[in-house]
């Protein structure tokens, strides 16, 4: 066991893992995190606490993770490369581990121009792959980057993101391989709408044996409306929403219901796909729908880690 | 003929000291070929490299005594050029010792053969320039 986290144990036992997402509030009040955690507890094995998602200033992912733990919910703390240099990153990892955070997702982070601090300076001292290299070394060798030894290394299960829908497509699997090489234990993918392309990607992943080396969790976003589908197709880079999906949402009498159905169908399909060890469900601004999705997909009750 | 050695000599002191050595009958290795420069400051890194590429076993540059250059600081410039070549020779694995800067006065005829001796000894230590050996083999 690298970290002893709940999801690590589940992966070890070969269970299909479900993770969700809790967005920290634009507030110093802990109540919203607590309430969400209480509501969602038991419907997924762990929850991502995003790190100033889309570069909008929010409660820190570390604080939010700790609040979740107080509610008995296992957090996956996200940490972007945008806002911290390697000193802060390593320090925050030590702090998070000390407070009991056992899962950490390494990501580059959205550029600040998308958020409410577009004038800020970004850091990107490390990129997400380097972040994985640094963190896995801290954990496995109890050394900070360089040679200095740590008295006690962090205990953490390291996650990374993968986007099969960005370009150039032929490099996407290589990038995953680099993350695996850098020390990623599990992968959460970008939200899948173009299942055909995802299958092609997975085929390549399997042909390189990467699914044997890392736990791949397919990312899903339930669609709330045809507008949301169009928005994701047109405005969010690195997302592919096929026209069939848009047409299906458009034709639906009850688009919300249709969105949930699509998501459930996707999960059912993914459950049969070789190399997929779990799903990461991100009901953006629709967090309370998670229990329904998980239940309809037959993923309840969640196993005890 | 002994090792092939090129000596770039400033006209005022280096060359004059070789002239004096000659007139005083001070012998030295006949493999030494002198290239006369107006001032050691005229030396160009490229000239020295060209000599080595052609197979020279060693190169030396002779200027006036420090603070005694006829062109104020030409000999200091030459020293810096020689240092540049030393760095390159080290990087090439030929050995920085194959090139050296010397400062003499025009009336120091005895110095010139000593310089040749010094460079000859260095070639003995470092071995011949492989490029010269290759060139000879090919001809």
């Amino acid at each position, binding site marked *: 066991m690298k970290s002893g986290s709940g999801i690590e144990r589940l992966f070890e036992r070969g269970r299909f893992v479900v993770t969700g997402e809790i967005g920290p509030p634009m507030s110093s009040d802990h109540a919203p995190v607590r309430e969400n955690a209480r509501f969602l507890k038991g419907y997924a094995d762990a929850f991502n606490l995003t790190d100033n998602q889309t570069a909008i200033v929010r409660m820190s992912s570390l604080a939010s993770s700790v609040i979740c733990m107080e509610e008995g919910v296992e957090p996956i703390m996200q940490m972007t490369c945008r806002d911290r240099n390697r000193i802060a990153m390593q320090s925050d990892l030590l702090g998070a581990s000390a407070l009991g955070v056992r899962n950490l997702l390494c990501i580059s982070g959205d550029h600040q121009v998308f958020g409410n601090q577009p004038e800020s300076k970004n850091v990107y001292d490390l990129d997400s792959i380097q972040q994985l290299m640094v963190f896995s070394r801290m954990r496995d060798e109890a050394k900070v980057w360089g040679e200095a030894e740590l008295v006690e290394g962090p205990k953490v299960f390291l996650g990374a993101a993968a986007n099969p829908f960005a370009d150039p497509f032929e490099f996407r699997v290589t990038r995953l391989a680099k993350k695996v090489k850098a020390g990623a234990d599990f992968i959460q993918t970008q939200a899948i709408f173009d299942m055909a392309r995802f299958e092609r990607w997975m085929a390549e992943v399997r042909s390189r044996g990467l699914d044997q080396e890392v736990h791949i969790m397919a990312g899903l976003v339930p669609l709330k409306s045809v507008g949301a589908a169009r928005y994701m197709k047109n405005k969010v880079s690195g997302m592919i929403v096929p026209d069939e999906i848009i047409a299906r949402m458009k034709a639906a009498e009850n688009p919300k219901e249709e969105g949930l159905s699509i998501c459930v169908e996707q999960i059912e399909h993914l459950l049969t796909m070789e190399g997929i060890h779990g799903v990461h469900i991100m009901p953006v601004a629709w967090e309370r729908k998670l229990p329904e999705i998980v239940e309809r997909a037959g993923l309840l009750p969640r196993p005890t880690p | 003929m002994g090792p092939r050695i090129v000596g770039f000599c400033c006209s005022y002191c280096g060359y*004059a000291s070789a002239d004096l050595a000659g007139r005083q009958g001070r012998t030295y290795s006949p493999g030494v070929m*002198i290239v006369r420069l107006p001032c050691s400051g005229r*030396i*160009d890194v490229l000239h020295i490299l060209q000599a080595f590429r052609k*197979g*020279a076993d060693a190169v030396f540059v002779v200027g006036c005594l420090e603070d*005694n250059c006829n062109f104020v600081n030409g000999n200091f410039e030459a020293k810096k050029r020689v240092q540049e070549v030393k760095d390159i020779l080290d990087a090439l694995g030929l050995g920085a010792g194959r090139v050296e800067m010397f400062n003499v006065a025009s009336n120091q005829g005895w110095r010139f053969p000593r310089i040749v001796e010094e460079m000859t000894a260095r070639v003995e230590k470092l071995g011949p320039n492989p490029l010269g050996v290759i*060139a000879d083999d090919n001809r």
Partner: protein
Amino acid sequence: MTLPPGSEPVTMSSSSRPARTRRPVVRGEREPTGRIGVFLCRCGGSVDGRLDIESVREKVSSMDGVEECMVMDFPCSMESRETIVNVIRENDLDRFVVAGCSPKAVEARFKSTAQESGLNPYMVEIANIREQCSLVHNLSEATSKAGLLVEAAVAKCSLLVPAPHHRGRVESEEVLVYGNGMSAVVATDELVSEGAKVHLVLPFSPHRLVFNYHDGIRPGHLEDMRDRITDSDLVRVHGHSSVERFEGEPGAFTALVRSSEGAEEIRCGAAIIAWEASEVPSPSLNGSLVVTQAELESIMDQGRVPDRTVMITLREEDTYCPERITHIEALRNAIRMKEMDPRVQVTIVARDVLAFGLSELDYREAMSRGVSFIRTEASPLITVGDTVKVRVKDLNLGEELSIETDLVVMSSWTQPYDTGHVAQVFGTPVDREGFFIPTQVKLKPTASIVEGVFLCGTGVESKTPSEVVLEARSAASRAKAMVSSKMEWGGAVAEVDPESCSACLTCIRSCPFNAPFIGETGKAEIEIGLCQGCGICVGLCPSRAIQLYCYTDGQLGAQIGALVGRVR
């Protein structure tokens, strides 16, 4: 650049293209050109007999471009040089090689020979097969080495191009002397005695030229000299004046001289900066118990001499290098005190006593008269009460001494004033303390880096009055010689290829003679009259835009190739 096409890098693009790039070839490699004559010298027995000159001739005569190759007894003799001229003319040669003794000995002669043959004087190359072959190697070694040297000379010669050769335009034989004291007077006197016309520019009235006498110069001598030159028809004195601008080249300078009455342009062929330093007032003097050497002299002039005297020759802030005259002055005054009263005690504190030349005799005399010397490194501590105490660490004894004395005599120091402006106007550098820097302090002590501008006086370096006289006369003679000479210059001078120049200022920053400047086209140019041909700029130019005539990259490359790239 007037180098012929092909001698330097090949340009790929035609003029209609915006960019100039270079073919990937080794620079300077080109077909040798020219019709070359080679003249080999037997040099009596000092070449022939010690090497096989005939076999050298055979080897060389088959070289490409060699039209004529002959062995001569003494090519440097008048007769042989006439023969060479004829051979050149008859065979339509355009360049030649002489192999014999050192070019340092014979180059000038063969330049004239080239000129007499109708060639540019720099179309000759000399191979030194005497000093570098026959005198130092055995017969077989000398023969094969001579062959290489001559081949290399031919290789270089085939790439020679006519170098710039300027005949002097001495537009003015007048000499400008700009000074403020003794050396200006002496230099002017020397020029007048050699028949030169002089403009003597002084910052004050000539009557304010007053002099200190010691060091064996007859009192009144300099005043006589002053009066003589101010009365001379050959001298025009510009009192209360300064030189505000100085431009041109040797033989043809223009100086703008400004006085209270206005500015005037003066033409001159050479200039002498004859600047004197003045005494730096010492801040540490204390009343009548601590005095300068000059004050000591006045005390002695009054017939008084203290019982105990300590002379200190170290400057507080600079314990190392004393000025040239400091110790001489101390020694002479110490001797004079002993002469006045052999019973007095005189102690000289110094780091090392530097008594130049014949002053060494003064040192011996001082020793024999019982003057004591204390060697130290740090400036002594002086405490003044009823008497004066000097505390000093004696290096020889390794002990700290405390000496009670009646008088402390401190050496004073000199510094030239207002030299910064003069330096700027004339383009001659000064050091941090304001002393003028000669081109080469030992070999050319009166030359400045500006050709045609000479230096003398204590503003160059501290010196004794008799040395000042000698130096001022030397500077004057050189200036006179320059304006009287044929004034030829050229040959190994640098030239910029404006096409390649990046105007990076590297040459301007690195030239010791301020010869490069940025011309009207925005590219570097070389002021040929200032270029001394050292080639520093050539070795540094990042764009390889500068070439030095007689020593181009191509010529040296060919020479190196011929010397090294052969099977032995």
